[in-house]
């Protein structure tokens, strides 16, 4: 019984502390936004620098991710061309093509007989007269092997090796060797982009840190007075941290805007280009998780930059 009033009082006290906490944070949050709003041009220029610095690596990573998506599609189209020895007879190569088709790793085979090859060559090259001089057909039979869809590049390479070992086979061309090379290049480009992203991230931290440093310098007299009146370090730090937060958020949003407009401009031509190769592909954007990651990391960079600046300059504000 006797405890009830004190419990109620401590609850009231807790609510009072929470209210004070919420109101001081709200004040700092919107106060910082108000200060940025009152200097629109300077704020916009800083946000533009941050936006471009963030859009560059994000755009590159998006481009690479699209490129990788495209090469995965192409991998399924990769095929083996098995050139047979010229002394293999017509029954033998038909049986070979049929046998290969039974392999679980093979989707289909197409046989090109020497006669068909010569015919095709004649039609394509326009060297009919020269070909007429030949007394026998120099072209070998070719079995085109389409690997099962979704076959991994390594398994496709193993399949090629298996076909190469067949006694009738003279030469195997794995048409996706260049795709593997492309994949390596894409991976290299991705790592280079991550290095650049790290450097630009540091640049973002420095830009925000410097902007916050100037903001502190501009309000130096005010901060000294506030400190005289008994403000804690946290109270003084808070509005600048929120200022960094807003800069980061604004830079991230601007980067998002830049990337989405670039996509809008590039999507049409990209689809037209890939359609001309017979496989029109959909260019994908950042997606919700990408947007979240971009905005989250940009605000985190903003907070980090302002934290560093405030930490360095707070001690220099001792009252004179």
């Amino acid at each position, binding site marked *: 019984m006797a405890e009830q009033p004190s419990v109620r009082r401590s609850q009231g006290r807790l609510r009072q*502390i929470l*209210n*004070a906490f919420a109101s001081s944070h709200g004040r700092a949050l919107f106060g910082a936004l108000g200060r940025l709003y009152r200097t629109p041009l300077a704020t916009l220029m800083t946000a533009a620098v941050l936006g471009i610095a963030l859009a560059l690596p994000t755009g590159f990573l998006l481009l690479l991710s699209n490129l990788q998506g495209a090469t995965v599609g192409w991998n399924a189209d990769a095929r083996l061309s098995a050139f047979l020895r010229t002394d293999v007879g017509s029954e033998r190569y038909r049986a070979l093509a049929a046998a290969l088709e039974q392999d679980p790793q093979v989707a289909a085979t197409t046989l090109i007989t020497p006669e068909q090859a010569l015919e095709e060559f004649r039609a394509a090259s326009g060297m009919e007269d020269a070909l007429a001089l030949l007394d026998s057909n120099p072209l070998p039979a070719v079995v085109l092997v389409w690997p099962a869809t979704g076959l991994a590049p390594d398994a496709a390479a193993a399949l090629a090796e298996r076909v190469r070992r067949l006694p009738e086979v003279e030469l195997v061309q794995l048409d996706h060797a260049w795709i593997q090379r492309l994949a390596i290049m894409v991976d290299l480009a991705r790592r280079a982009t991550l290095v650049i992203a790290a450097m630009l991230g540091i640049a973002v931290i420095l830009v925000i840190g410097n902007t916050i440093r100037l903001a502190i310098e501009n309000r130096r007299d005010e901060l000294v007075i506030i400190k*005289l*009146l*008994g*403000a*804690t*370090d946290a*109270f003084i730090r808070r509005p600048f941290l929120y200022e960094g937060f807003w800069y980061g958020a604004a830079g991230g949003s601007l980067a998002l805007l830049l990337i989405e407009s670039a996509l809008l401009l590039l999507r049409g031509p990209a689809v037209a280009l890939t359609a001309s190769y017979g496989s029109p592909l959909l260019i994908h954007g950042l997606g919700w998780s990408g947007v979240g990651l971009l905005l989250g990391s940009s605000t985190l960079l903003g907070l980090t930059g302002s934290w560093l600046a405030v930490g360095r300059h707070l001690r220099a504000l001792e009252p004179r």
Partner: protein
Amino acid sequence: MIRFDNVSKRYPNGYQALHGINLHIRQGEMVFVTGHSGAGKSTLLRLIPLLERPSNGQILVSGVNLSRLGRRSIPQLRRRVGMIFQDYRLLHDRSVYDNVALPLVIGGVPHVEIGRRVRAALDKVGLLDKESAYPITLSGGEQQRVGIARAVVSRPPILVADEPTGNLDPALSWEIMQLFRDFQQVGVTVVIASHDLDLVGRMGQRVVTLTRGRLLGEEVA
């Protein structure tokens, strides 16, 4: 309330501002610190809210030994010591109301209570009708009253004023001193540095005199 025990202050550049000061100021007392420029009046006052730390000796404020007070506890000390300056130290981009509200905002006082207490403080110094004015539009005497309202709004037990009437004419100075006396009469401990001996004499309060950093003597005028 405030006790100085053998306190000395030497600045980093080697200048010895205070030598072995012993002084006890009781609660509810009003004390004037006088002396020529450079005698150490400002330094003595700046030691109370720890704007400076003493080189030697001990200072106790409300029973707290300031030499044991860490950096993080200084804000709590400063909230208990209202400070008033010769140059007012107001924020010129904020209204009178916002200037006076500042200590309460810093102290985390609830929003509804801020309005009530700011108006009470402005009423006390006679500036209730100027709450939305900006300091730059006020006269020197009015600006100093805003400074006083800001110092008392959080009801600190101690007021420290460094040459509060240094920029004001005698009539205004007298009015400001009456304000300080009003606060003293409700139990606030008031320490005022002033070189205006005539004004100090007319107040009829305890006077301590500093000469080249030493406490010369005391008198009750």
